[in-house]
């Protein structure tokens, strides 16, 4: 074993404990003031269930969309040289830096029926702002950099010799991509997907402006937490939070497992 393990592990546990586990245990402690029946009643309320469905469904979908298109962006940035590349590279990070409320207001302005894009979509009968579709648009926006920034460095580090070797062994372009490049990038892509998903589940600021917040239709789970807090129902708010945490944690574990599997597979 490398020296310094004890110290490093001790530090890691302390740091994670203070930064992550302490606030989470406070959340759990508040929830415990509820009886089991009250807890179940809170989280099985139709509005709450609908909001879970929307939050997790839209987040997974948004992360999947980002996995596809973020990959293409990362590919272009890693593989090609073209004028203005640096500017595009910097643009990718913008959703990171922009205050989420600004993003939400900007997206709403564009997609409302009198906005630039909303105006074009309205005659087609597509309503983006103030509908679940708006939630998806906002989540795609805020999640995009996560995929690009995790995939891009891996693509850049991929040695061209690998592809050349594949070509000399008779693989065509598609085979090279599907059998050589993609497996090497897959673990990073899964990480990017997981990060984008996790970010989307917790997102509040940008979604709230574009969602329309109609009960049972376009209310996200974080909004119901805020709604509970507005009624001074701390315990009810944390009950929803605990369920969100549990589902998120389970999904992230699953994603991590997939990533571990794809990594070991790509090595063998």
């Amino acid at each position, binding site marked *: 074993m490398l020296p310094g393990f004890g110290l490093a592990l001790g530090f890691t546990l302390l740091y994670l404990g203070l930064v992550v586990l302490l606030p989470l245990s406070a959340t759990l402690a508040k929830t415990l003031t509820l009886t089991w029946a009250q807890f179940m009643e809170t989280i099985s309320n139709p509005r709450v269930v609908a909001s879970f469905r929307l939050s997790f469904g839209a987040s997974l979908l948004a992360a999947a969309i980002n996995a596809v298109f973020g990959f293409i962006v990362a590919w272009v940035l890693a593989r090609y040289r073209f004028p203005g590349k640096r500017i595009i590279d910097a643009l990718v990070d913008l959703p990171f830096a922009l205050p989420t409320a600004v993003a939400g207001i900007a997206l709403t*302005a564009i997609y409302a029926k009198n906005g630039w894009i909303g105006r074009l979509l309205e005659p087609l009968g597509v309503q983006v702002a103030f509908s679940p579709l708006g939630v998806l648009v906002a989540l795609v926006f805020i999640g995009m950099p996560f995929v690009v920034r995790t995939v891009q460095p891996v693509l850049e580090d991929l040695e061209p010799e690998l592809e050349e070797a594949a070509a000399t062994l008779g693989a065509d372009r598609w085979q090279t991509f599907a059998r050589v490049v993609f497996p090497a990038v897959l673990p990073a892509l899964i990480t990017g997907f997981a990060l984008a998903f996790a970010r989307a589940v917790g997102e509040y600021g940008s979604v709230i402006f574009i969602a329309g917040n*109609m*009960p049972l239709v376009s209310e996200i789970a974080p*909004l119901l937490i805020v*709604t509970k807090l507005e009624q001074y129902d701390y315990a009810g708010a944390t009950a929803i939070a605990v369920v969100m945490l549990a589902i998120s944690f389970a999904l992230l574990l699953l994603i991590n497992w997939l990533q571990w599997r794809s990594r070991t597979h790509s090595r063998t």
Partner: protein
Amino acid sequence: MKEFLIAVALAAASAGAWSQGSLLNVSYDPTRELYQDYNAAFARHWQQQAGQKLTLRQSHGGSSKQARAVIDGLDADVVTLALAYDIDEIAARAKLLPADWQRRLPHNSSPYTSTIVFLVRKGNPKNIRDWDDLAKPGVVVITPNPKTSGGARWNYLAAWGFALKKHKNDQGKAKDFVTALYRNVPVLDSGARGSTTTFVERGLGDVLIAWENEAFLALKELGRGKLDIVVPSLSILAEPPVAVIDKVVDRKGTRKVAEAYLRYWYTPEAQEIAARHFYRPIDAKIAAKYEKQFPKVNVFTVDELFGGWQKAQRAHFADGGVFDQIYLKH
């Protein structure tokens, strides 16, 4: 979490500065401009009266969010919020002031009032005259979510009160009316300013239910020549209350100045400031002076029709209350 950090920062800032004479007023969102003027006037007044230089700090946010910050330890000397229920909660949960706080100052501790009116598109194309028109099919109504917005609870109760009076206290008919009205609402913004933006900037809806002072402000700032105000036949008297937070002022030794700060509201000078910011003054003389600005409205109060905020909150806005039933029924 963000609110907590702000609360900590503000608390630290105010603790450091009180010895030079400083007050923290924790207020709600649309009073920003009002209290800027009021604070300047009171600082001048206090300097003349007591010879002390004052630093007046303001904190603004959603009304119940602000109340929660005070409950969780934000060192507010005074609170000036959107509805009595939020101050009741501070009294009940953190015991920072007595439960009968609202009797300590004249007019239910509400030195300025407002009412609920309609904002419509220029020329009133849908011919909206009264509450009845808001429940008609095809009319699109914009109002925030009463579960997240204190201001929106006044809107909701105003509609309910109108229906109750019209149908001779028939609660079932009132519920049907309010249900029909909320069926016409396509977006429930989380706060009043959000709804104003949806209506004015996004161009959504035929009518915005708004506080009169917000409606005037929207007219002045955003929609000159694009919007009209319509006053319904009956509305609610919105009474945003003020209170000294006893435990805080006694600890900080600021009781005298905090009480003077709120009592100053009941002087003619201060009443003029309220009127200039489109809040209805309670002082009869000042009210007469601004008569032209404020159209006559028949109003009822929350106490008269709902037996106070505690009851109204429990019946209508608590989980499983009437507002939830409106949406869960279908």
